Structure formats: C-alpha cells, structure tokens
C-alpha cells in the first residue's frame, strides 16, 4: 500500500517529528513529548496538521435531502456558516463514520470525514445518493490545520481581517487569511481547548503554516502530533472512530444520542431501529472511567466486575496529563452506567480498580 504524505511532511521531519503510519498517511506522532505538546494545547496554543482528513462537497438540488438521509443529526436547523457534528449510520444499526457537516448555502455543503474512512464513506454516500446530489471528493486537494488552545484566537487574529472573535462555536466563515483568499476558518476542533480549524488548498498550505507558526512565536506556539491529539480528545471523552465507535456500535450505545435527532422531518438510515433502542434502552453503553489504582487502561483490556466476570472492554485509554491519572472509555452493561460505580481493568493479569465517571474527564 502506498503511504500518502501531507504537504508538510518535510517540515515535520525538520521539526523533529517522529513519523508513523496512520490511516494510510505518514503523520507525526510527536515532536517533543506527548505530555509537553498536550500541555501546550491546554495552556497556550498548538498546531496540528490534519490534512489527512477527507473532504467531500455535496452540491445541487438533492444535496440537503441526501445529507439529511445519510446522517443522524438534523441539518434543517443549520444556518449558513454553521457546522454540525454527526454520524453516518450503516443500515445495520452501526456507524460508517463520524463527521462534520458544513452548511455553506442551500445546495452547497462540505462533509469532513476521518482519513481512514475516506474510501468507505465515499462509496457509501454515493450508494445512497438517489437524490441527484452532485458529489465531489476533494480530499486530495484540500489541506487542513487545527490551531487549538486558549491563545489560538490571539495568534490567528494577527493574520486576518475576518472578525474571528465573533465566529461562534461550531460556526465558520471563508475569507482572506495569511494573504491567501478563500480560506475556510472554522471555530471547531477535537481537543476541548478551543481554537480554530483552517481549510485551504494544498498549494497554500506551506504559506499558511509558516505564517501561523511565526504569528504564534510570542505565544509559545508549537507543532503537535497525533499522540497529544489522542490524549486531548480522550480527556474530553470524544469518540475516536475505529476505537470507540465502528460498524458494530450504535450511536445510541456510544452516547451519541445528542446527534441522533428523531424529528418528524428528519428521515435517515436506521432511524426506526435507533428509535427503538432509545425507547427500550440499550444493553451496553460507552462510559468513561478513571483509574483509582495506578495504571493506564489500554485498548482491548478487559473490564471486569468484583467477581472477575468480564463486563466489557476498554475501547480507548491513556494517561490524563491534567488529572495525572489513567482514564479510559469502554462499553459496559447496565449495572455499570451510574457515575461512581466501581469496576476493574484487567491489565496484564492484574486487576486494577477504576470508577465510572461522567465525561469530560477534565
């Protein structure tokens, strides 16, 4: 398989990036240490190259109908310039992918999907397109940066006349940025630290990246790799496709009921089966837990009860740098839904005590 590279590959290497294969791309895992990069984002500002993400344009008269049908959330509530977190049900009660839907204007939407799922999502959405929408896969032409942290606004404001302060959370605008026209500036991100995501054409990425780094110097900006991206999203209890959600987990089980809207006018794939789950309750649910004993829960470790019975598995786990404790998520059955419930993580033969807590963890 050919491993793709983003346009910043050389720069990542020059910056000391430890490169790894991720979702078919060669991406930086870390530049200094995961902890340092994590804290930079929580306390100052960091830049992530997320150009591996996929972008699909959906245009034309059937665009809205198609998106309403393939996603669980209700796009009829969106105003132009608003974005929405959503997921693609797979027709069997599972999830094809989670994604962002950007509403530009009637008959023009942008879908942003996970890199690992670009081909799968593209085929799936096309297969559901009985609405005559015009689909365009721009994943190879569009690059993306996430500038995240409390100082992100101060940094980016130096590079644009766009009134960034007034872009509300989950809204976006297109404008001139770092002397490049038509850059999409979106008040979104997957770190919980605040900030923006920037979409541009590949040929403008280097110019924009350099400008962001330079503008951020006074604020202690630094590049951040996938390692900290994972620990940051997990501290917020955000799902990672492939770990916490996949083709076998339902949005209701995954705690994504808040993006699954059963309004009369929102007809979508799996609506009836998911509605039935919501009404009857599900037999397992994705929950966050914090370690009481010292240890780091890891993907695949068993979750067990007091008597040693397996009650679930860890889907994601890490060390929380803010709490200085291990944290994780996993699917557990009903008796373990309540906050404060004790359970054990089986780590390499040892039973380590943990408790269910309400996410976000920090």
């Amino acid at each position: 398989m050919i491993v793709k590279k983003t346009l910043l590959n050389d720069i990542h290497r020059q910056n000391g990036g430890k490169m790894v294969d991720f979702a078919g791309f060669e991406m930086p895992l870390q530049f200094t240490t995961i902890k340092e990069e994590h804290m930079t984002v929580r306390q100052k500002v960091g830049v992530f190259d997320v150009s591996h993400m996929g972008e699909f344009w959906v245009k034309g008269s059937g665009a809205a109908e198609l998106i309403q049908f393939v996603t669980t959330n209700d796009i009829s509530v969106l105003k132009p310039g608003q974005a929405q977190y959503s997921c693609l049900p797979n027709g069997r009660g599972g999830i094809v992918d989670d994604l962002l839907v950007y509403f530009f204007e009637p008959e023009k939407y942008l879908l942003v999907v996970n890199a690992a799922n670009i081909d799968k999502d593209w085929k799936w959405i096309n297969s559901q397109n009985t609405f005559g929408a015009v689909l365009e896969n721009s994943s190879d032409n569009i690059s993306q940066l996430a500038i995240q942290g409390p100082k992100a606004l101060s940094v980016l404001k130096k590079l644009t006349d766009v009134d960034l302060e007034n872009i509300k959370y989950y809204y976006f605008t297109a404008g001139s940025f770092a002397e490049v026209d038509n850059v999409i500036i979106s008040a979104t991100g997957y770190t919980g630290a605040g900030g923006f995501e920037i979409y541009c054409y590949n040929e403008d990425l280097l110019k924009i990246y350099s400008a962001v780094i330079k503008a951020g110097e006074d604020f202690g900006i630094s590049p951040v790799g996938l390692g900290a991206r994972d620990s940051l999203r997990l501290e917020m209890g955000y799902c990672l496709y492939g770990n916490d959600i996949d083709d076998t987990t339902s949005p209701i089980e995954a705690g994504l009921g808040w993006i699954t809207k059963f309004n009369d006018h929102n007809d979508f794939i799996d609506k009836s089966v998911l509605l039935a789950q919501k009404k009857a309750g599900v037999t397992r649910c994705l929950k966050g837990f914090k370690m009481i004993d010292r240890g780091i829960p890891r993907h695949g470790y068993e979750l067990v009860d007091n008597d040693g019975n397996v009650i679930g598995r860890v889907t994601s786990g890490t060390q929380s740098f803010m709490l200085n404790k291990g944290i994780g998520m996993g699917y557990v059955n009903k008796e373990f839904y309540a906050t404060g419930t004790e359970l054990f993580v089986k780590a390499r033969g040892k039973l380590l005590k943990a408790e269910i807590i309400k996410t976000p963890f920090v």
Partner: protein
Amino acid sequence: MNVPENLKYTKDHEWIRVEEDGIATVGITDFAQGELGDIVFVEAETVDNMVFVGESFGTVEAVKTVSDLFMPVSGDVLELNPELEDTPELVNQDPYEKGWMIKVKMSDPSEVDKLMDAESYKKMLES
C-alpha cells in the same frame, strides 16, 4: 544515540553498571526510552525478591505502550529508584544516571561477562 562505553547491555535494551560489593545498577537505554516515549511510571514488584537473569523485574508504562523490564543478571532486587515515583520522566531525560531503575545484589557476578559491551550493543541497534 547515547551508548556509554562503561556499561553492559542486554538485547532487551537494559543496561547494567557494576558498583562495589557485588551491587549493580540497572536501567533502560537511551534507545529504549526513545522508543517508549513519555514514561508515566515504573513498577518493580520484585523489590526484596530474588529474580533470575532474563526474568521480568517490573514494568515501564509509557503513554503509548507498556513494556516488561528484564533482569540482565540474577540477584536480589534491593530497591527501585525512589525518584521515579514523582518524576518518572527522569528515565526519558537521563536514562543512564538519574533515571536508573533498580539496584541488584548479584548472585553470580560472572553473568555480567556474557552481556554485550557498548560496541556490540551499537552494532545490534544498527542492524
């Protein structure tokens, strides 16, 4: 890659330094700490126990992975570096000095001779 001349090495990337009275200090190499990344804690439940060469004396947990730690020689595990309790990152920052892991009372000091010297360890890393 930092591979000090005065130490001996295992294929599992531990180093050992022989001190006085049959006591030796054990840690992991610069290469190993780099591969592991951010170390979060080091555990040695074998303190006060006799552990044979090649057996696990503990574990090192990093953010991304967990790894067993193996005895370069047989002996009694005397102590775990107390500094690592609060500052496990010493293993990342200074793997051969402040980031040492355990002290061992060797039961057969001749086992040290069977370990790799710096030259051989470097060759192993390169191959």
